[in-house]
């Protein structure tokens, strides 16, 4: 790390000479190319995670039935003999689905793609603060992903102790039958941690130090704000996980006893470490989506964001509160019950900033002029589904109710409402909104709307009934619920959910097709197809190396839509105020003292 800093003499200022193919497309230091690399990488892992979800749902929807034909021959006898998924393979599927989705799909798609794309372009910087570190941050991801993928092919299969890898189940292959797979899982996540930290380091430094003149803290677009806060969470949370993973790795490999009770180690200590990281992680996965949605809703309803300052304050307070709520994952873990109430209070307090954000989004739509295009639809779906995910969170925040629904499908429903209905729809809003800037062409509106409508329908059909499964007491991570008499009546509902998931996953083919087709055939976008205000849209699509021909100056906040004195319903941040005046006014340089807050 320090070597790289020491070597960093090149700052990425507009290089106009032609770069070789490798420098331009593979080992690129350009933040926009790195964003695209993260995008393709993240989408591939998203597809993989989706495929694993299909397998899981096949087992739950049609237990004991062999997989349908093309899938049946794919799997060796150690995983699914004759197409019937084995319990140990099922445990690996559950573990790896969550691992790929959380660490290799959502995190890269949010922080990786949009952190890289948006930060420099929205604050008016020519590139990231440390372009080479940025490149390293990307290239670590495929390495970690390769290690994780390799774990499917080693003896014993991939890790099967859940994505939370609770000790002591995860400390020894004796308990799970997985030896090498668990080690590879740990190594992969330790490696991946460096990617997140290097990325986050870049984001933080860039936002603090490289804003264009006039870009005061409260003129920063909310998407950048959200990624800035996320970057802090990454920086501070990931090392905690890395520390814990290393200790768990020692327990696994050399026989220490940090978390193994036979050597007086503390299994609950692992849970404390994991969730102390894990809850900030939850906000790492949702905050950027909140930023994208704010951006899209303000722009597409042509109205200033409602309560910009409280939006920022809400995100910052979510960032802080995220550190003191981890115990709500452990109400039933044997943790001292007297601690329980503390965590109940801190947890329900998080509802306050979440509610502020929701009401502000609704306030933005109120008396707006809402354009129903794909990004807006996804953004509003985010709000609608985030409401459900947030409200269902109140059930489990209440510790006594959590006694019953803990580790049931109610939790699965809740987390998928937040991470799919929230994060994934937020990502779709982001991709469809910024696609023209990344690739210079618009995605097809018609296909986009079809994809949206079907996704929204199938998504709700799949996940809403999971609440009912939870209410009926169905445990999560159960290979075959029919083992329990009281769950046998739920089989039709499980089949319904499974088919809905298959439909939801299939619908994503429309998105994939639209994405790839529009790369070549989409309508040429022009600089500012959405008539948006941020600096990003003043650059050509796609922006050249170095982004801005000269350093832009910022005169106003990012959400000056539908100003009554202007004919246009938007007002770019860098447009000098003089343009609507008499024309002879001098351009006033914004005073650098205008830096409220830290």
């Amino acid at each position: 790390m320090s070597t790289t800093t020491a070597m960093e003499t090149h700052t990425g200022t507009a290089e106009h000479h032609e770069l070789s193919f490798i420098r331009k497309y593979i080992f690129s230091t350009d933040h926009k190319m790195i964003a695209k690399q993260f995008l393709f990488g993240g989408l591939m892992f998203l597809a993989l995670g989706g495929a694993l979800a299909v397998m899981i749902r096949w087992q739950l929807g049609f237990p004991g039935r062999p997989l349908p034909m093309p899938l049946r021959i794919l799997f060796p006898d150690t995983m699914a003999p004759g197409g019937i998924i084995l319990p140990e393979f099922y445990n690996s599927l559950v573990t790896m689905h969550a691992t790929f989705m959380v660490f290799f799909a959502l995190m890269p798609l949010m922080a990786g793609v949009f952190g890289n794309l948006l930060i420099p372009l929205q604050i008016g910087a020519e590139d990231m603060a440390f372009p080479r570190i940025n490149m390293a941050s990307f290239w670590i991801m495929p390495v970690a992903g390769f290690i994780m993928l390799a774990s499917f092919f080693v003896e014993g299969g991939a890790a099967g102790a859940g994505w939370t890898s609770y000790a002591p189940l995860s400390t020894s292959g004796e308990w799970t039958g997985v030896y090498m797979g668990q080690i590879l899982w740990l190594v992969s996540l330790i490696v991946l941690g460096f990617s997140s930290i290097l990325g986050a380091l870049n984001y933080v430094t860039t936002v603090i130090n490289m804003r264009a003149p006039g870009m005061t803290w409260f003129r920063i677009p909310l998407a950048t704000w959200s990624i800035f806060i996320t970057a802090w969470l990454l920086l501070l949370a990931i090392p905690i996980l890395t520390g814990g993973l290393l200790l768990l790795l020692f327990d696994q490999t050399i026989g220490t006893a940090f978390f193994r009770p036979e050597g007086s180690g503390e299994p609950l200590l692992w849970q404390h470490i994991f969730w102390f990281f894990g809850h900030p992680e939850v906000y790492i996965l949702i905050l950027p989506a909140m930023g994208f949605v704010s951006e899209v809703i303000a722009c597409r309803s042509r109205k200033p964001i409602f309560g910009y300052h409280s939006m920022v304050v809400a995100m910052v307070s979510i960032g802080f509160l995220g550190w003191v709520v981890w115990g709500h994952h452990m109400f039933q873990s044997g943790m001292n019950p007297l601690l329980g109430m503390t965590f109940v209070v801190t947890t329900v307090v998080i509802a306050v900033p979440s509610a502020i954000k929701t009401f502000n989004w609704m306030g933005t739509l109120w008396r707006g002029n809402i354009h129903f295009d794909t990004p807006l639809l996804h953004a509003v779906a985010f709000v609608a589904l985030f409401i459900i995910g947030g409200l269902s969170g109140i059930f489990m925040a209440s510790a006594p109710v959590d006694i019953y629904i803990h580790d049931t499908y109610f939790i699965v429903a809740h987390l998928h409402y937040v991470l799919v209905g929230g994060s994934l729809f937020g990502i779709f809003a982001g991709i469809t909104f910024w696609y023209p800037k990344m690739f210079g062409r618009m995605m097809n509106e018609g296909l986009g709307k079809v994809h949206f409508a079907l996704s929204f329908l199938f998504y709700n059909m799949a996940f809403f009934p999971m609440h009912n499964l939870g209410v009926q007491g169905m445990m999560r991570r159960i290979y075959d619920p029919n083992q329990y008499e009281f769950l046998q009546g739920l089989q039709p509902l499980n089949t319904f959910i499974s088919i809905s998931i298959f439909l939801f996953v299939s619908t994503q083919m429309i998105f994939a097709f639209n994405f790839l087709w529009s790369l070549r055939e989409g309508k040429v976008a022009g600089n500012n197809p959405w008539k948006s205000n941020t600096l990003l849209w003043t650059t050509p699509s796609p922006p050249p190396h170095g982004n801005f021909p000269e350093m832009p100056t910022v005169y106003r906040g990012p959400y000056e839509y539908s100003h009554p004195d202007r004919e246009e319903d938007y007002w770019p941040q860098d447009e000098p105020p003089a343009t609507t005046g008499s024309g002879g006014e001098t351009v006033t340089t914004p005073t650098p003292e205008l830096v409220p807050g830290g």
Partner: protein
Amino acid sequence: MSDAAVTTMDRKPMPGMMVYNKKLGMWVFLLSEVMFFTSLIGTYVILRFAHPDHWTDPGVVLNVPLTAVNTFLLICSSVTMVKAFASIQQGNQKGLQMWLLATILIGATFVGVQAIEYNALLGEGFGPVLDLYHAVGRGNPHEGPSLGGPLYGATFYAMTGFHGAHVTIGVFCLIFVYIRSLQGAYTQDSLEGVEVIGLYWHFVDLVWILLFTIVYLI
């Protein structure tokens, strides 16, 4: 836009933190390092409170005098690092090279002493691994009952080991900076590399003072 262009050319970015990027980046990176050591130290604190019987009185198993000398050495290396930076601030390249070399040598010595200590401790049965732990205490080779418990060994090696790894990485980075300084890469106006590696070095030093206190003295 063309009128504005004239004025934008000499416009500076927003002031931010009033430090250059690399320094800010290093500060931010060190914060994340703080969290890494927090996870290790937190583990130690929790395990020690839960199982006090796994620990012994200070100095029974661990060689406190040797490590005290080692700690003193590491503090000295922070001084030499400051001297190195002060030299280049005055444009003294020879001074920079000399003090960097001193820092590297002291840092390497620290790691060396740690390795010797590890070796002695392992010889006395003080290991990190559950099945092999049989610490007999200093001066009682291979006799007497086992003192403390495996958690003592495990947390000791985890904390001091990861710290040692940080020192080692620091030494390699310093060697890199040293080679660059021999090539005359640093001048009075261009000394970012020296300052940034200095920050890292002081941080590692500071962590050690904390670790020495809680691992050896308490």
